[in-house]
């Protein structure tokens, strides 16, 4: 009790408990307990603590330290049933989630990536850094197929590493290119991360898709520029193949033939949203159908593949929805302890300058990205940050069309930040996925050295989006203007 009053000089009881709650959560995470189980576990522990230990003794505690009752009871938990039904089940926007997952998996199976790789290699073979450029372009075009970063990094790595090693590329540039282009997928629409962000931040999915397009393309462009410059300055890192075939009309036609189907698919999805022909949810269904058709047309589709794709969709949806359910329960308990206000005050109190506050949030998210995947970060952190961002009242131009333009801009910033975080050594996610598919002569050291210039490019991109918010609000304003 004496200790309590000592602590009371610094924190009140609720702040102390929220701190303990997060520490318990982090401890469980490091023990390797699945994130969803840890979230519900912490929720239950503090729920029981609140109802049976703290609240009955609230008066005694208040003598030593400021304490607001949690007022958690089992009866109150019944309120989460309606919230769960309305938030997770009856949510037409989230219908896009399994559809985009299905589309991505189907696209991986359609073999378009392999075809593009073959064709582009022939075309760019005689260009210095041609292979790296091919991988980068495929990464940008196939950004659709991803969402779950591991998947795209593995796909590009399995395909690109052996070919690049075969042509004596430096290990650094080979791995850097693949990790960087593989993570672009979480930013370039249609990305399932944006679907979840739009749900959590209560902004239109169409706005977010359109808003992410320019920043994504700018990053892709910066990468390509970097590879070309690097090739000129350091030709030994990207040698030309020994026996080059001359570029013939056939080679160009092959590239066109291989690139057109996936481009058509992207056009189908993004175009139908842009021209207002379909809602993002409907576009997801069209995309899934289109990808199935691509797989069928390339004769890669049989009943076994079809079944596997839908079972894999079920599995991926399962672990995403797991965190959905768990995070909403966690948030319910956190709110009972006043945790949302405590965190809001903490973040807003960081500075009087709203841009520094945004920078502070991004820094926190950057650090969390070392530990958690985007699914957890979007579902746990975003709802807590929404009131903060709204309260900052940032002057972001919405052209009178985009609702909450500052939130759209903020979401894009978070997406780019997360992407950077996943690439940053020593613990970036993408690097470890890549290590998993590399031959043993490529060490983590090569990967770390190779990714550093890309992280710098990424930070440059982040800076550009930060200083020119119009980049993320202009296109949605045009798309939904009329």
């Amino acid at each position, binding site marked *: 009790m004496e200790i309590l009053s000592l602590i009371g000089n610094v924190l009140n009881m609720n702040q102390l408990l929220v701190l303990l709650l997060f520490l318990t959560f982090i401890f469980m995470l490091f023990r390797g307990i699945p994130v969803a189980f840890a979230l519900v576990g912490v929720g239950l522990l503090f729920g029981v603590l609140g109802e049976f230990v703290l609240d009955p003794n609230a008066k005694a505690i208040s003598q030593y330290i400021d304490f607001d009752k949690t007022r958690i009871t089992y009866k109150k938990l019944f309120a989460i049933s309606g919230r769960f039904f309305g938030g997770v089940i009856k949510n037409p926007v989230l219908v896009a989630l399994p559809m985009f997952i299905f589309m991505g998996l189907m696209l991986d199976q359609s073999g378009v990536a392999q075809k593009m790789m073959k064709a582009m290699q022939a075309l760019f073979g005689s260009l210095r850094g041609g292979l790296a450029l091919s991988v980068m372009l495929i990464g940008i075009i196939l950004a659709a197929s991803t969402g779950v970063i591991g998947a795209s990094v593995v796909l590009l790595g399995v395909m690109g590493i052996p070919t690049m090693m075969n042509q004596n590329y430096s290990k650094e540039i080979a791995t850097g290119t693949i990790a960087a282009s593989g993570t672009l997928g979480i930013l370039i629409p249609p990305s399932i991360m944006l679907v979840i962000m739009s749900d959590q931040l209560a902004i239109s999915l169409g706005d977010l898709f359109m808003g992410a397009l320019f920043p994504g393309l700018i990053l892709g462009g910066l990468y390509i520029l970097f590879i070309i410059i690097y090739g000129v300055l350091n030709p030994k890192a990207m040698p030309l193949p020994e026996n080059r075939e001359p570029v013939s009309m056939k080679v160009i036609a092959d590239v066109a033939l291989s690139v057109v189907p996936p481009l058509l698919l992207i056009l189908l999805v993004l175009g139908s949203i842009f021209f207002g022909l379909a809602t993002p949810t409907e576009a997801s269904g069209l995309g899934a159908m289109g990808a199935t058709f691509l797989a069928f047309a390339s004769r890669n589709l049989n009943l076994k593949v079809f079944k596997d794709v839908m*079972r894999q969709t079920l599995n991926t949806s399962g672990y995403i929805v797991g965190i959905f359910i*768990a995070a909403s329960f966690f948030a319910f308990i956190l709110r009972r302890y006043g945790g949302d206000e405590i965190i809001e005050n903490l973040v807003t109190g960081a500075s009087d300058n709203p841009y520094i506050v945004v920078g502070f949030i991004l820094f926190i998210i950057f650090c969390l990205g070392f530990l958690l995947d985007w699914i957890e970060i979007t579902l746990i952190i975003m709802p807590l940050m929404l009131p903060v961002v709204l309260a900052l009242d940032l002057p972001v131009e919405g052209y009178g069309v985009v609702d909450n333009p500052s939130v759209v801009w903020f979401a894009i910033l978070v997406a780019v930040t997360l992407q950077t975080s996943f690439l940053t050594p020593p613990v970036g996610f993408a690097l470890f996925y890549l290590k998993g598919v590399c031959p043993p002569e490529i060490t983590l050291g090569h990967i770390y050295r190779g990714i550093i210039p890309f992280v710098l490019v990424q930070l440059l991109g982040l800076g550009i989006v930060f200083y020119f918010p119009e980049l993320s609000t202009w296109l949605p304003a045009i798309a939904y203007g009329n």
Partner: protein
Amino acid sequence: MPDRTLDVVEVAAKSIAINDPGERNKEEHLWGDRLVIGVGNVVAWIFPLLMVAIVTQVIIRKFGHNQAWLDDAQWWMYGFAMLAAFGYAITTESHVRVDILHQNFSRKKKARVEVFGVGWLLMPFMLIMTDVMIHYGWASWVAGEGSDSANGLHMLYLLKLSLPVLFFIGIIASYSVLYRHLARFTEVRFWKLLLAALPFAVFACERVFYYASWWFVRLTNTEIADRRISREPLLEASTYYGIGLFVLMLIVSYILARKKDNTVGAA
């Protein structure tokens, strides 16, 4: 050597071939796991169906026939599939974790972490959700809840009543995972299972006692109004009775297991 490069791409195409998540570690699976996988395999067909429903909707709307029931059907299918997916991912052990330290744990230590995560953290939550969703679905059934739009899909209570069933399937999935992982570091006995899922077991005992006494009061006391029943002293003390029931079960199962082990040991 362009030809060799092309070979490499061909090989790569094969190595990223997709697999069936339900067939991994199949040899370890118990009846519960196979049940959940079986349900999942059927539910997975919802995704292509959903795809067709969306595309149909887009097309017929272009011809001016807006079908409200098709709108409802989309999120019905999605919602049902997502919750079934939750249980499926428990069985396939796909729920995401931070594995910086975990990947270097020994097999036994990993199993202990899993037992704690599933038995102490996940299972009580699943039971709460089952209990809560039964009431939610029941209230919807009693009210005969329908769709928001006149020609939408009515009988919304069917969807709502299916949710507790899916959470219950999630409990079966969790139980099987718990059993499998417990078997990795000890010989499974009922009392060990009770301890491995202690909060779940205590809470389950409490709920059994609570509902039993609710119906007992309801059937023996015709005077009392339904919503007053939970204030009866018998029900208010259900927590203590629940703990008592749990301790009793633990002791009895421990003694029975000891007896059985001794007779096996003697023979």
